[in-house]
């Protein structure tokens, strides 16, 4: 009898965990949908940064094709960073975050779900917009699949790592620049392997290794980052 009860409990616990995950995801997506500027600003920023390079350096197609992977990746990285500050900010200001921390629900799941929602509003649109930038920067057609796949695998890691910075600075009035200082050095591995994957795709080298590495970083991020985010949130909110 006892065993049945515990089994039932674990079943229901699993259900509530998934339920919790979806509820938080739905709520965050709904909030983002209602506040559309947060959705579009990083995208516009992404386009603008990529426009600056031909204007600032050279409109030469050969040259642009060579730097395109790096430019798109750096622009995506900065756009993600720009949107990071809002991740916990509004929840912190209206007190929702404090309630969330006090609730008995596991913070790990809530945080993971919030980061996923954030990625769906920043990383995913950026990935979908990337081919447009690729065309503007004369990236060869062979590189497009590499660009999109590398962004698809890389931007969730950027969101996860950026969320650590957002959680550490949420209690501060001017967190924006500080997040960049904290997080940019940690973005370097993703940037290196992301651009390398695109360059390999352009030159026709095998890609699997890069995607494996990006995937490994994502897996590590999914397991480790929510722990750091949860710890950082507890510190920032209680202090």
């Amino acid at each position, binding site marked *: 009898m006892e065993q049945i009860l515990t089994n039932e409990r674990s079943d229901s616990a699993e259900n509530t965990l998934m339920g919790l995950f979806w509820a938080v995801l739905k709520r965050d997506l709904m909030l983002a949908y209602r506040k559309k500027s947060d959705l579009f600003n990083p995208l516009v920023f992404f386009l603008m940064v990529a426009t600056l390079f031909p204007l600032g350096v050279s409109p030469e197609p050969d040259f642009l094709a060579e730097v395109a992977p790096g430019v798109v990746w750096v622009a995506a990285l900065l756009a993600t960073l720009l949107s990071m500050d809002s991740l916990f900010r509004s929840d912190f200001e209206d007190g929702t975050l404090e309630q969330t921390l006090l609730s008995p629900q596991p913070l790990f799941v809530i945080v993971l779900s919030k980061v996923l929602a954030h990625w769906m509003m920043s990383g995913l649109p950026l990935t979908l917009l990337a081919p447009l930038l690729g065309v503007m920067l004369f990236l060869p057609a062979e590189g497009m699949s590499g660009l999109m796949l590398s962004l698809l695998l890389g931007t969730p890691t950027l969101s996860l*790592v950026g969320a*650590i910075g957002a959680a*550490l*600075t949420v*209690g*501060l009035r001017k967190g924006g620049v*500080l997040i960049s*200082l*904290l997080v*940019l*050095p*940690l973005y*370097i*591995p993703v940037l*290196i*392997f992301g651009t*390398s994957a695109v360059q390999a795709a352009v030159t026709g080298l095998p890609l699997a290794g890069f995607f494996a590495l990006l995937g490994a*970083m994502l897996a*590590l991020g999914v397991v*480790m980052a929510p722990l*750091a985010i949860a*710890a*950082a949130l507890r*510190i*920032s909110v*209680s*202090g």
Partner: protein
Amino acid sequence: MSENKKWMPRWFYQLASPRWSYEIMGKLLPGFAVAATLLLIGGIIWALAFAPEDYQQGNSFRIIYIHVPSAILAQSCYMLMAVAGAIGLIWKMKVADMVAKSCAPIGASIAILALATGAIWGKPTWGSWWVWDARLTSMLILLFLYLGVIALHSAIESEATAAQSSAVLALVGLVNIPIIKYSVDWWNTLHQPATFTLTERPAMPAEMWVPLLIMVIGFYCFFAVSLMMRTRNEILHRERRSSWVRELIEKR
């Protein structure tokens, strides 16, 4: 805590007492200061005047006696900062927080020293002041990590929150350092194959590596001196309300 006492050494718990730490550091300081002075002066004289010159790089090789110890120390210092931060987070040990805070500026300055000497060494070796060599790039990123920790610490007003937040950041950085190092090494071999590396040298003769070893130990002793001085200041500041600090000040 009492059941843990069996496997944790006594001094570990005594470290939790700011007063005990302050006093023990005061006792240790002169010894380390003498050791650091002797080792550094001896090491520098040996390195500059007596070590043989390198058959490839000539006398510019003598920069190694500053560059390598500072690079090693900058990395160990980050490690110590993260470990001290973790101890502060887990055991809520104030002294560990203070050690972690004191590590950051010293480590950053040592990282700057390693970068500057690396850049200077690059001029006669590679012909330019800066080369995107894997080691130099990793060191630059390490400096950025230090600067991030310092910036976060100074941005948060509450001492306890600042210490905990920067401990979390230092730990995240510590997890990332091997990944960054690996990716930068890989990136470096992709972009510039077979460069002349600064430090990887086949079989150094003893006249060369003995002074290097002396310098490394000297750098560590110097770091200990500077760290203890800073930590003692930090203890005095944070414990300003306690009676023993008051007595200490009155006695002066």
